[in-house]
């Protein structure tokens, strides 16, 4: 049968405020699936033009798919959110790029013509599901030296990246981190972030975290506005004695969820849904697992090549700050300054947090807001590193583009 590839658009995205993992964190007594459910419901409230019965898929990512992140989360969250039973769902895992993969996989299906509109998102409750929970790595990884042992520990891979590129110093990483906190605080002050947050009712029964009873999470918990280089200089380097990676120049361990509506452009136009971004290309690429943080470079190369664009065509970057070094490695590769104004305008994961599989959609939501504000920009890019040596990049076109300079 003859086919036409359809344009795929990002309609809208929301997320929960991100929390700090652990007993004092805001979500310590909140289920992961509830975070997803509430995000989906907020998306639907914000987009009444989308008839829930017309949703063709609910793709939800989580890295650790057990307990409240198991049970085929896309399906169960759909039922819990009150979607019609006719709407199917499934779970996705590509570790940190889970939500991004939920977007690209369903986008592929939309382009193919299988779907009109989907919900794509992700969740990670790292307090309830610490990294590595229940894993059982094949012993051949070690016995046959398929990967270096450090590949299993993300912080160590970040140290390895510093080794590989000696010019990426701790000083640069720290400076980048300070800037991220500053930009995030400014974005909050300007109300850029809150508009896409889903308030979450949070319960606390143990007084060690603060006042007990029901509360409401309305802002990211990990933020440390006012962070200075001096503050960061003294932090421990937990992954290596006298190393470079610290809690200050990396994202923390976090809890949170994201969700987005991805649709065929014709469907979105027909139902008068917002069209915030148009997907141009995406790519995933692999590198040696022990330098996982380098993954965004080949992924970006590949995505640019598929799009027929060059790096100079990109007017806005949303790069996941799992580690500052991973971001500056990409920037360094392209000769972009660490403080280039096109990069992470609202700050990044160092400030907001990085609940693994959820983060991809946060990048998209923020890029979409920046597109709205900056119609002179035509193309934007999101990129992130992924465990076991991968990178993920998506390139988007700004539908508000006014023919300006970039």
């Amino acid at each position, binding site marked *: 049968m003859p086919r036409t590839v359809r344009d795929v658009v990002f309609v809208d995205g929301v997320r929960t405020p991100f929390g700090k993992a652990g007993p004092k964190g805001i979500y310590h007594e909140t289920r992961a699936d509830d975070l997803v459910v509430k995000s989906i419901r907020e998306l639907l409230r914000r987009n009444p033009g989308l008839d829930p019965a017309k949703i063709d898929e609910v793709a939800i990512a989580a890295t650790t798919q057990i307990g409240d992140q198991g049970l085929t989360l896309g399906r169960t969250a759909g039922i819990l959110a*009150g979607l019609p039973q006719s709407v199917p769902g499934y779970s996705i895992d590509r570790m940190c790029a889970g939500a991004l993969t939920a977007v690209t996989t369903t986008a592929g299906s939309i382009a193919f013509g299988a779907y009109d509109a989907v919900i794509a998102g992700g969740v990670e409750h790292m307090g309830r599901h610490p990294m590595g929970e229940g894993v059982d790595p094949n012993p051949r990884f070690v016995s046959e030296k398929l990967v270096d042992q450090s590949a299993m520990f993300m912080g160590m891979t970040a140290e390895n990246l510093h080794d590989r590129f000696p010019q990426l110093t701790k000083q640069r990483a720290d400076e980048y981190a300070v800037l991220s906190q500053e930009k995030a605080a400014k974005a909050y002050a300007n109300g850029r972030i809150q508009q896409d947050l889903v*308030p979450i*009712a949070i319960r606390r029964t143990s007084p060690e975290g603060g*006042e*007990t*009873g029901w*509360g*409401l999470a309305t802002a990211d918990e990990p933020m440390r506005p006012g962070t200075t280089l001096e503050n960061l200089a003294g932090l421990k380097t937990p992954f290596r004695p006298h190393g470079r990676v610290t809690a200050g120049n990396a994202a923390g361990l976090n809890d949170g969820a994201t969700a987005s509506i991805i649709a065929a452009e014709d469907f979105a136009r027909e139902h008068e849904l917002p069209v915030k971004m148009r997907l141009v290309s995406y790519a995933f690429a692999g590198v040696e697992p022990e330098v996982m943080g380098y993954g965004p470079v080949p992924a970006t190369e590949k995505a640019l090549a598929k799009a027929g664009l060059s790096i100079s065509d990109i007017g806005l970057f949303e790069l996941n700050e799992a580690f500052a070094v991973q971001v500056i490695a990409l920037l360094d590769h392209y000769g972009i300054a660490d403080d280039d104004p096109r990069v992470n305008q609202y700050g990044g994961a160092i400030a907001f947090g990085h609940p693994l599989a959820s983060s991809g959609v946060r990048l998209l939501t923020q890029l979409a807001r920046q597109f709205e504000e900056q119609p002179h920009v035509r193309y934007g890019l999101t990129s992130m590193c992924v465990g076991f040596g991968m990178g993920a990049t998506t390139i988007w076109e700004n539908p508000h583009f006014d023919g300006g300079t970039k």
Partner: protein
Amino acid sequence: MSTTTAELLKGAAELFPDEVVTSAHVRHLDLPLGAGRFALITLDNGFDHTKPTTFGPGSLANLNAALDQVEKEAADGSIVAVGLTGKPFIFAVGADLKGVEILKNHEDALAIGRSGHEVFKRLSSLAVPTFAYYNGAAMGGGVEVGLHCTYRTVVKSLPAFALPEVFLGLVPGWGGCALLPNLIGPEKAVSVIIENSLNQNKQLKGPQVFELGIADALFEGADFLEQSLLWTASVLKGETTVERPEVDRGASWDAAVAKGREIADSKVHGAAPAAYRALDIIAAVKNGDLQSAYDAEDKALADLIMGGELRSGIYAFNLVQKRAKRPAGAPDKNLARPVTKVGVVGAGLMASQLALLFLRRLEVPVVLTDIDQERIDKGVGYVHAEIDKLLLKGRVNQDTANRYKALVTGVLDKAEGFSDADFVIEAVFEEIGVKQTVFAEVEAVAPAHAILATNTSSLSVSEMASKLKNPERVVGFHFFNPVAVLPLLEIVRGEQTDDASLATAFAVAKKLKKTAVLTKDAPAFVVNRILTRFMGEIQNVIDEGTPIDVAERSIEPLGLPMSPLVLLELVGPAIGLHVSETLNRAFPDRFTVSPNLKAVVEAGKRGFYVYDSGKPEIDPEVAALLKQGDVALTEEQARDRVLDAVAEEIGLMLDEGVVAEAQDIDLCLITGAGWPFHLGGITPYLDRAGVSERVNGKPFLAQGVASVPA
């Protein structure tokens, strides 16, 4: 006030050291829409939803302290509003009844009412608006604390919302009687406070709470608190306006109260004071004077707490809630054998009803047998028709209806039907020889482990089992008509019944969702024996010369669901006669067979009354049959005769060990005969009316069990 609320509560808390104390956590948050800083109070007793949050004096003191804090914050402008919600699935289910049971004097009872008011009232007098978020089950004081708030939201999935006080024998006394009619109008308030309570404590669901106007907004469970807080922000910012219909304070107010009195009369016949006290307060608060109404609530609460009806009500409530779940004398439940197929001997109406019940509750194959195919087809047809009705009403879906229909079958050949049955119940003609034959036939074809149960109402279970090879597996399984409505199941242990069979019977009863009470194999077991003695004495009084209307009225002060002769009509005079004959054979000195009743039955009459005028009037044909003596008693004399007889019979039954305790007698009367809570079944009433002492020289229950403790 000379005593502060805190002091009052401290004193009350000392009386109730075992209280499960509810915390009132105060937590601050930023409202959405930039609406400002907000203090949210969470009521939480620290347990999960299986132990709902209640209010005792210590809990009220905690809420009071929380209100001290937010009152200050409201006054100094550091918060814009205050909210109140509960732990997951539970808002609050009202006063802790254990704390009410221990109260010994009027003054302490008054203090409970007053202190509750003093604490709750503060929610309506803060410098900022207050919001209650009914996130889960809310009853009694739980409902009332929310009524004191400025606004309310309710969760759509809320399973139970009620002011059940009148059901127990109290009034909604922490503001319910005063506030509810002023919020939603007297008619709806009467419906919630009186009608629902007296209608087996009917519960409201979330959407009804909203439709009645009790809550201002309704939100779904998935993000109830988030949406409630967003709504709060929107109200505070003036973006949402709450409009409530004006309450009509005209004649309709009085009409609503009058209707409430009619409802109360029809249910308790003036015999229990709670509904009337509540209606008095509702009637008076037409003038909008809340404080006077609060004072009246305090007084009503204290009076009722010191009264026998409430104590009986709490006793009865505990019987049906607790004792019913742990039947006295039931063997270790681990001895029970699985029941994967049920046989029913007989396919008449009773047998068909039993088949339907087993089918729905056990969801295993049920086989009916009878003496000819026509009867069997009729029985199976009845079950199918009932399943169709359930389907039409939406009580089961098509898949389940298909499943149930496939599960019920009928066969002529018992061997074919019962060869793999684990439980066979007979519902054939009440004649010992017939029953013995049936059980012998069943024993010949059923597996050796199968329970043989009998639904006999008056025959000896031991005698029925006596000719069997395995008499230890015979149990009495006595249901009450209508089987689907009355919860009681008398489980009769025959002389040879073994523990495993009995345990299996109890396990089946539990799956059938019946209230099982273990009884000895004594004539007519419990309910029929007491009712027959009761009715027999009425009949005696009539036969001796007391006019029928006097005899009937003599019992009215008890507030039984119906008069004795109306009950006889319901049972059927022939069956009544049959049971009285059985008991007369067993206990000829106490159970008589009324010649007048015999004459009525022989004349083929179905009752004593005709209803041509709309009201019951003695059927002239019956009147013509009656031969009365010349001893006419007063109502009081008649009542004493009847109650003395009942007290004597229960005393004898307990001496014989028919049941373990008087509590089981009461549980049987409540669940098998519908005798009211305010009588506590009957023994609390007999005790407090002095009948037990007069007849047996001692009360049935120790003081404090269903009465004010010593």
